[in-house]
């Protein structure tokens, strides 16, 4: 069981790392948000695989379902924000947000 757990954890950490590197290097707001989604995928895989390995899959499943519901709410709000940023500045470049002058 430990080997299976190790395998899942390895890939979950790989997903989180890929998302974090994407967050550091990308400039497009939608791309940044896709990177956040990738981090979230890694976290849900981590939760469920740990539940699977430790014999508490039902609780882990409940947590993942909660996480997915929260994720949808987050995505809706963030994409609405991105659309508003685009309407104001006609650009999705994250560097443009550093200029505070309207």
């Amino acid at each position, binding site marked *: 069981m430990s080997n299976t757990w190790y395998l899942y954890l390895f890939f979950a950490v790989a997903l989180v790392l890929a*998302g974090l590197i994407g967050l550091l290097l*990308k400039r*497009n707001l*939608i791309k940044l948000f896709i990177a956040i989604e990738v981090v979230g995928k890694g976290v849900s895989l981590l939760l*469920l695989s740990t539940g699977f390995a430790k014999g508490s899959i039902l609780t882990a499943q409940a947590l*993942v379902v909660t996480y*997915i519901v929260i994720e949808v*709410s987050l995505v809706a709000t963030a994409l609405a924000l991105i659309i508003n940023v685009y309407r104001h500045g006609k*650009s999705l470049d994250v560097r443009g947000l550093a200029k505070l002058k309207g």
Partner: protein
Amino acid sequence: MILQTALLIGVVLCSVLAILLRDLLKSAVSLAVASLLLGIIFFRMDAPYAGVFEISVVAGLITVLFILTISLTRAGEEVRETRLARWAFPLAFVAFLVIDALVMKGLLGKVPALASAAETGTFGEVLWKGRTLDLVGQIAVILAGVFAVLALFRKDDKHE
């Protein structure tokens, strides 16, 4: 085990593609494929409810929202990425994967096992009786999301 590993590799590959691809639409579709594969992994891990949520909500609804946003923000393609991203991403990713492979196994042995009673009952019982507060929190978060979207798309009468 081999199928599971192949699925996991597929998830990571699709996620990396979603970050690296220049075309935003292709990125969104790639993210959806990654969610689909993750959902299949959840099914194979004896977690059908999490799998159903992952496939229907994350691969379905969130992808639709992404594509909608991409179509509403046409100039998104014009953002110039740094040249650094093109070669630094694969380099950093491979470096971190090597560190992950070397360190993770050692760390895993140090994680203390929490004492917990064996789970009994069905998923419904655990969700509705064991995690009732989570459900209340979910309702609050959904309401907060709805009000946030309403506030963001509110028409400003004074200026128009």
